[in-house]
Each structure stands twice: as structure tokens, then as C-alpha cells.
């Protein structure tokens, strides 16, 4: 029973993925070029050919010298997370319960205490 439930959950996820893949394929088929025409014209045919070559021939082996790239993406993730924290705190926090209600100053009670 547990296995059937797990299998059905995976099927639901696969169906959802298939829908998204279908949408992505439709978008892909609507793309005419790798880069917009204006960009290709501005960088020139030589630079465009180099761009295509670099995209197609990525290095197979890991290069530790580029660890800074990994660190930079880690920093970017941290910046996005901190921005998200600030944004969600400002926007998504429910208003305090006291909002719109009169503030009780407890003046009478204080007078009695005095």
C-alpha cells in the first residue's frame, strides 16, 4: 500500500513535469535564433562564432582554479536570500494585532497605584 502511494506521488510529479516540459518545448520552438539578431550584429560574426564554439566545447575535467566562480555563485545565493528575507519580512508579515485598536495607556490604574 505504501509502495502504491509512493508510486502514485511520483506519477503526479512526472505529469506536472511533463506539462512544464511541453510548455518549454513550445517556447523553444518559437525561438528563431540563439541570440537576438541585434546582439549578433553588434558583437560581429567572428565573436558570435567564438561564442558558439565556447558553448559547444566546454572543458571536461574539473579546474580547481575556478573555485572563485563557485564562491561567487554562493555569494549571489546569499545576497538573494538576504534580499528575500527583508522583502518577505516587510511584505508578508501579518499586521500586528494592535493595529486599528485604541492604545490602552492604563492611566486609571496608574492613578490608583499612586
Amino acid at each position: 500500500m505504501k509502495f502504491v502511494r509512493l508510486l502514485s506521488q511520483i506519477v503526479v510529479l512526472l505529469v506536472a513535469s511533463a506539462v512544464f516540459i511541453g510548455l518549454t518545448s513550445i517556447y523553444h520552438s518559437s525561438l528563431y535564433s540563439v541570440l537576438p539578431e541585434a546582439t549578433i550584429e553588434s558583437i560581429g560574426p567572428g565573436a558570435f562564432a567564438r561564442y558558439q564554439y565556447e558553448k559547444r566545447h566546454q572543458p571536461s575535467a574539473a579546474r580547481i582554479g575556478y573555485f572563485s566562480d563557485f564562491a561567487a555563485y554562493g555569494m549571489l545565493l546569499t545576497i538573494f536570500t538576504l534580499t528575500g528575507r527583508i522583502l518577505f519580512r516587510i511584505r508578508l508579515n501579518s499586521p500586528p494585532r494592535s493595529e486599528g485598536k485604541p492604545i490602552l495607556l492604563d492611566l486609571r490604574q496608574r492613578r490608583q497605584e499612586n
Partner: protein
Amino acid sequence: MPALKWRLQTTFWLDIALLVSVCALQTVRFTGLVVHEWLGLAVIAMVLAHLLFSWSWIVTQSLRLLALQTNRERVNYFLNLALFFSVTGALFSGVLISQKAIPMFIGSKVSPDDMDLRWAGLHEEFAFFVLLFSALHLAINWEWMLAAAGNVFRRFRESAL
């Protein structure tokens, strides 16, 4: 180890592994194409496990989608949907432009010159959105992550003593 503790620890370390993988997958120059592609395939399994662990949340929030919800729940739901869409797009386009891992699976040789660069471009765009939405996903679930980290590391300290 009780099931709840096991589940918490597994989910926590799985999420950490996913975050590190998302950063590592952004830079092919650092990992190299072979590690990049195999790590990408491993991410499919990690994402699947992450979603299965969160299944009750997915079902509850999907059923409540049309009902009255707080802003936070609504934003969280659509953020997760966007992240799922980006991950699916990045993984699918990655499979289509694969030069090492997938050709090995299907036993064919692929020439880099045959690669569809439109898919490569989409792959990069989806990858950026995966990074962005992962960060926002972490931001909105920050309290859970902190609580889980506290719980996991407290257990570490207790077992070390």
C-alpha cells in the same frame, strides 16, 4: 533513531546538498562537464526526494489554493511552483544538450557541433532562475531551516559528549 529524527536529519542534509549543488552547477568551468552532467542527474533524484518528503504540504496547499489563504502561504506556493518549473526546465534542457552522461546511458556518440544552442541558451536562463528561486525558497523557509539546523547540531553535540 526514531523516524521523526531520521526524517528531520535527512531532509536537512538533503536541502544542504541541494543548495551546494545548485551553486556548483552554475559553473561548468569549475566542475568540468563530466561532473556537471552527473551532478545534474543526481539533482533529479534529490529534487524527487525533497518533493516526496514535502508531499503532505504540497497536497494541503494545492487543495487550499482557492480557499482563503494568507499572503505568505500564497506567495510560498507560487514561489515553489516557479522553482519546480525552473528546475524541470533546467534539467530537461540539460538532458537534451548532454555530451557525456546521457550519450553514455543510451550508448551513442554525440558531436558537440550538433548541439542545439537554443536549448543551451534556455538551459542557462533556467539555471539562473533556479538559483534565484532557490534563494527565495530558502528565505521564506528560513525559520524552519534555522530550527532544523539547531536541532541537528544539538544532537551532534550531545552525541559527541
